[in-house]
C-alpha cells in the first residue's frame, strides 16, 4: 500500500486498478470535452459580438492609455502599501489591547475589533469619504482599509501569541522578565514567525480591497480601466477587463508566493529553532 501512496494520495479513493483506470480516463476525456465546449462557447460569444475587432484593442497602443493604466497601478500600490503598514501597526496595537491584563482595555479592544470585522468595508469607506475626509478619496480608502484589515491582523497576531506553547511565557516570567519583556522578546517574535503566512494572506485581501477606491473615485487601477473603457470609441469593456484581471491576479499571486517562500524558509533546517515539546 505505502508504495502507491503518492503525494496526491487522498482519503477518498485507493490507488486505481485496471478497471478504475479505464473509468478515470473516460471521465477525463468527458471533462476535456466539456471544458473545450465551455471555452468554445466563450470564444464564440466574444467573436460573434465583435470583441476581437481591432479598433476595440487599439487604445492599448496609445501611450496615454498605457500611462493611465500605469498610473492606476501605482495609485493602487500606493494605497496598498500605506494601508498594509498602518493595518499591521493597528493590528499590533489592538492585539496588545486584547491580551492586556486590564479588563477595560480588553473590553474596548474587543469591541473595536469585532465592530470593524463585521462592518462592510465599502460602507465604512463611503462614510469616511463623505463624513471625515470630505472629498479626499485616498485617505478615506487608506483609513477604511486600515481599520478593517487592522482588526483582522489583530486577531491573527493574537491567535499567534496564544498558540505559542505556554511554557515559553512561564519560563520567561520565571526568569524574572516583566510582561512587556515577555511579550516583546519571547512571545511576539515566535507568534509573528508562525503567523506570517496568515498575515500576508490578509495583505492579499488588503490589495484586492483597494479596488473599492473605484466607488469613491480614487483613481486606482479599476477606476482607470473603467475610464479607459468609457472614453474610447466602441466602449472596449471586454478588452479592458481582460487586461486588468491578469494584472490583479499576478499581483496577488506574487504576494501569495512570498508567503509560501517565507513559510518554506521557516521550515528549512538552517535557521529553525529547537522544537519545543508542547
Amino acid at each position: 500500500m505505502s508504495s502507491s501512496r503518492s503525494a496526491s494520495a487522498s482519503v477518498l479513493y485507493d490507488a486505481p486498478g485496471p478497471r478504475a483506470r479505464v473509468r478515470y480516463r473516460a471521465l477525463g476525456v468527458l471533462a476535456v470535452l466539456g471544458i473545450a465546449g465551455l471555452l468554445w462557447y466563450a470564444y464564440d460569444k466574444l467573436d460573434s459580438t465583435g470583441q476581437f475587432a481591432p479598433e476595440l484593442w487599439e487604445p492599448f497602443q496609445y501611450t496615454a492609455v498605457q500611462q493611465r493604466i500605469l498610473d492606476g497601478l501605482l495609485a493602487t500600490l500606493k494605497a496598498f502599501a500605506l494601508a498594509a503598514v498602518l493595518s499591521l501597526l493597528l493590528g499590533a496595537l489592538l492585539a496588545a489591547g486584547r491580551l492586556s491584563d486590564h479588563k477595560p482595555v480588553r473590553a474596548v479592544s474587543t469591541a473595536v475589533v469585532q465592530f470593524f470585522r463585521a462592518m462592510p468595508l465599502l460602507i465604512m469607506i463611503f462614510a469616511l469619504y463623505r463624513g471625515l475626509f470630505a472629498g479626499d478619496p485616498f485617505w478615506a480608502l487608506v483609513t477604511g482599509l486600515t481599520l478593517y484589515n487592522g482588526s483582522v491582523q489583530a486577531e491573527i497576531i493574537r491567535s499567534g501569541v496564544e498558540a505559542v506553547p505556554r511554557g515559553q511565557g512561564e519560563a520567561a516570567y520565571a526568569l524574572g522578565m516583566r510582561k512587556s519583556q515577555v511579550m516583546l522578546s519571547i512571545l511576539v517574535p515566535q507568534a509573528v514567525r508562525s503567523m506570517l503566512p496568515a498575515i500576508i494572506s490578509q495583505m492579499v485581501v488588503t490589495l484586492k480591497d483597494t479596488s473599492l477606491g473605484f466607488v469613491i473615485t480614487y483613481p486606482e487601477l479599476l477606476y482607470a480601466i473603467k475610464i479607459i473603457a468609457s472614453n474610447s470609441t466602441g466602449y472596449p469593456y471586454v478588452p479592458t477587463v481582460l487586461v486588468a484581471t491578469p494584472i490583479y491576479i499576478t499581483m496577488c499571486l506574487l504576494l501569495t508566493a512570498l508567503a509560501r517562500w517565507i513559510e518554506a524558509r521557516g521550515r528549512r533546517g538552517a535557521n529553525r529553532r529547537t522544537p519545543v515539546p508542547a
Partner: protein
Amino acid sequence: MDILFEHGNFALLRDGFLQTVELSALAALLALLLGTLLAAFRVSPVPVLRAFGAVWVTVFRNTPLTLLFLAAVFTLPRLDVRFSPFTFAVLALGFYTAAFVCEVLRSGINTVPLGQAEAARSLGMTFGQTLRLVILPQAAKTVMGPMSSVFIALPRNSAIAGAFSVAELFQAQASLTDLGYPIVLIFFWVALPYLAISASVGVLFHYLPQIALAAGRLVRGLSERGTPVRTETVEANQ
C-alpha cells in the same frame, strides 16, 4: 431617530435590508452548490477536473470582487448576456464565494487522516459508507469554523452590489447621504442591519452541528423503523 421616520426613509432602509438579505441568501446558495462541485472536482481522481478546480479557485480568489462586479455588469451585456443587475450581482458574488467554499471543503477533507479511510475500507465499507459514516463527519467538524467565516463575509461583500445598481443597503446609504442627512446617523442605521445579519449567520453556524445531529438522528430513526437493516455485500476495491 428623526431620520428613520421621515420622507419614506424607513421604506428605503427596509427595502435595502430585504434586498441585501435576498442577494446574500441566493449568492450563498449558489456558492454552496458550486463550491461543493468544485471541491469534488479538486479531490477527484481525474487530473483534468482537478486542474479545472484549481484554475477556478486561483482566478476567483485573486481577483477583486469589485472587478468581478464590473465584469458582470458592464462586460456581459456587451456579449449579449442580459440579466437584471440583481442577477449579475448574485452570479458575481456566488462565483467569487464558491472559490472560498471549495477551499474550505477541500482542506476539511484533507485534514482527515488517511488511515481512517483505509480502516473503513478494510472493514469492508463501500465508498458511499466510507464517505458518509467516516470521512464527511470528521471533515464537517474541522470545516465548521472557516465555513462560518466565509458565510459571514458574504453579506459584508454584498455591499459592493450597491455600487452596481442593486438597491441594497449601500445604495440606501448613498441616497440618504445625497439627501444631506448627517453621515454619522446614516452610518448607524446602515451598520445596524449588517451587524444583525452577521450575528444571525454566526448564531446559525454555532447551532448547525446540533441541528445536523438532530436531523441525522431523526432520519436514522425513521429508516431503522421503516426497513430492516441490510447486510451489505463487500464490494471489491476497484
